[in-house]
């Protein structure tokens, strides 16, 4: 444990020089531009009781609720402050506190109503302060937004600006480190206000989606079989496709590198077939590979707690991706069936606008039945 902590700031000289030199030409190690944020995904737990509530004693007929926000960091990919800030805001916006009224014998007693009995109330939030962190490199000349873990180890200093969408500066924190000119500070604040507005809208969208889903869940409860229905046409397509392909093309798919959780091996093989064409052409620029794009795999956040419709959306997305790749691959096989493997891979890039029905031709179906019968036996 101590060794791991000790290695936090110790990067090799080569790595440090690499990152700094890349920044001189506005390149970052995960392919972003200097003022780009990483992809923001907000996932809500089933109960938004991430906030603990303690009711304090009655003061002159009023009840004072103390709100505590507990933040647990699951994985540090850099820029913890911004992430924690967004998480706390999202939690506070979706929090509901139980309603309480005065009652009892003398009208002084505070009765807290059960959430089942009376609808709990949301917190009143006036504005959303959003934190934007800048990392400073190279004697105060180069600034980047949303530093990753490696950039943080190499940076000269950092500055965090917290703004809301009204254009107010809520807080600025720059504790030592590399010095920067005051004109640069004002410029950073202007960039930060644009980013803060962007992030505020993303938070609001996620919160609205969650609230509508929660309201729907309260109205009627669906069994989780809804999710399976979407997958069914997919499964049929896959079978047809596998039977159609020639031997070495099937092998080609299976050789594709795997990605993601690894739920369905064959499906993921189909997914990556479209991207493989792009990777073949090497331009020597920064890779657009972000190790944290997937974040924590959703199976880690107890998947049985994930609400049904959110899972539904994910399955639909996966279904769409695999359907697209099936289309393009079928288009390729129709044009050059017995061509060399390399040619078929490159021609996948041209996505054919054919529908799924077009792809399945009647004469192939008879062939499928014959071959599937032989396969099954």
């Amino acid at each position, binding site marked *: 444990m101590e060794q791991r902590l000790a290695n936090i700031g110790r990067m090799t000289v080569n790595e440090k020089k690499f990152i700094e030199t890349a920044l001189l030409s506005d390149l970052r190690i995960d392919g972003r531009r200097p003022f780009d944020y990483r992809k923001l995904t907000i996932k809500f737990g089933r109960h938004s009781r991430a906030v603990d509530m303690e009711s304090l004693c009655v003061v002159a007929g009023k009840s004072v609720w103390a709100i505590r926000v507990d933040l647990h960091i699951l994985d540090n990919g850099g820029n913890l402050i911004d992430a924690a800030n967004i998480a706390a805001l999202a939690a506070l916006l979706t929090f509901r506190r139980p309603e309480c009224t005065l009652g009892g014998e003398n009208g002084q007693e505070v009765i807290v109503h059960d959430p089942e009995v009376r609808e709990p109330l949301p917190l009143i939030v006036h504005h959303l302060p959003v934190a934007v962190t800048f990392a400073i490199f190279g004697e105060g000349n180069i600034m980047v937004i949303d530093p990753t873990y490696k950039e943080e180890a190499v940076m000269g200093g950092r500055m965090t600006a917290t703004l809301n969408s009204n254009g107010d500066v809520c*807080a*600025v924190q720059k504790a030592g480190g590399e010095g920067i000119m005051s004109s640069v500070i004002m410029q950073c604040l202007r960039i930060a206000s644009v980013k803060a507005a962007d992030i505020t809208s993303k938070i609001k969208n996620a919160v609205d989606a969650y609230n509508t889903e929660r309201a729907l869940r309260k109205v009627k409860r669906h069994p989780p079989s809804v999710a399976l229905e979407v997958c069914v046409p997919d499964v049929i397509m896959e079978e047809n496709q596998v039977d159609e392909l020639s031997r070495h093309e099937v092998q080609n798919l299976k050789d594709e590198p795997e990605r993601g959780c690894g739920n369905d091996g064959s499906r993921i093989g189909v997914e990556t077939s479209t991207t493989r064409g792009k990777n073949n052409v090497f331009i020597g620029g920064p890779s657009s590979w972000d190790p944290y794009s997937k974040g924590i795999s959703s199976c880690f956040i107890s998947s049985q707690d994930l609400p049904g419709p959110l899972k539904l959306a994910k399955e639909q997305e996966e279904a769409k991706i695999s359907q697209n790749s099936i289309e393009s691959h079928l288009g390729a096989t129709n044009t050059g069936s017995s061509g060399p493997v390399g040619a078929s891979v490159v021609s996948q890039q041209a996505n054919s606008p054919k529908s799924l029905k077009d792809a399945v031709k009647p004469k192939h179906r008879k062939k499928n039945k014959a071959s599937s019968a032989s396969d099954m036996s």
Partner: protein
Amino acid sequence: MEYVNPLTGFRLDGRRPNEMRQIRGEIGVVAKADGSALFEMGNTKVIAAVYGPREVRNKGQQINNQALVRCEYGMANFSTGDRRRKPKGDRRSTEISLVIRQTMEACILTHLMPHSQIDIFVQVLQADGGTRSACINAATLALADAGIPMRDIVTSCSAGYLCSTPLLDLNYVEDSAGGPDVTVGILAKMDKVTLLQMDAKLPMDIFENVMQLAIEGCKAVAHYIREVLLEHTKQLECHRGA
């Protein structure tokens, strides 16, 4: 409460909005330390002592290519109105220690002293607002007294915004008014901002004005500190018998 009199424009202690409190700096107050200084901003009195560069006490923390800078901020029990029970170790002290350490670390030429340790101890004797700034100014003087090589002198000053007026160098009463408090620390000659802290809300253009006012205050402090250091060096020259 009117922190700025609308008729005369004076503040509660009779200063103008862009006027700093009286500052005073003295070098060499702690005989045993390698460098020490006493710094006063109005009623805020702060003493700083620097030990180093010396051998690293905790070998685990040793850095191979630069010096290790440590800082401890403490407030004396008698520094505030009510007697403080915990002079060190509470959250505010830890935060200010970190802030001072990072600010001084940016200006000390640490790569000239590998495998060594520089300790900065700052103690607040009397607190009347702006303790953070006074500590940084005192630490700068103490480091210069210890002869530790630095890029530039770091000075700090705070500014606020009350009654629609930017105010320079807040005292305790103005600080506890609940308005925004901007603390700025600059490298004087290089004109670069190393420390910038603000709480409470401010619209962006007003923030710019307040920050510029604080930077002006820092430059005035830097001017004074330079004079103090020159005076001290002349005295040393005298003692050596030039």
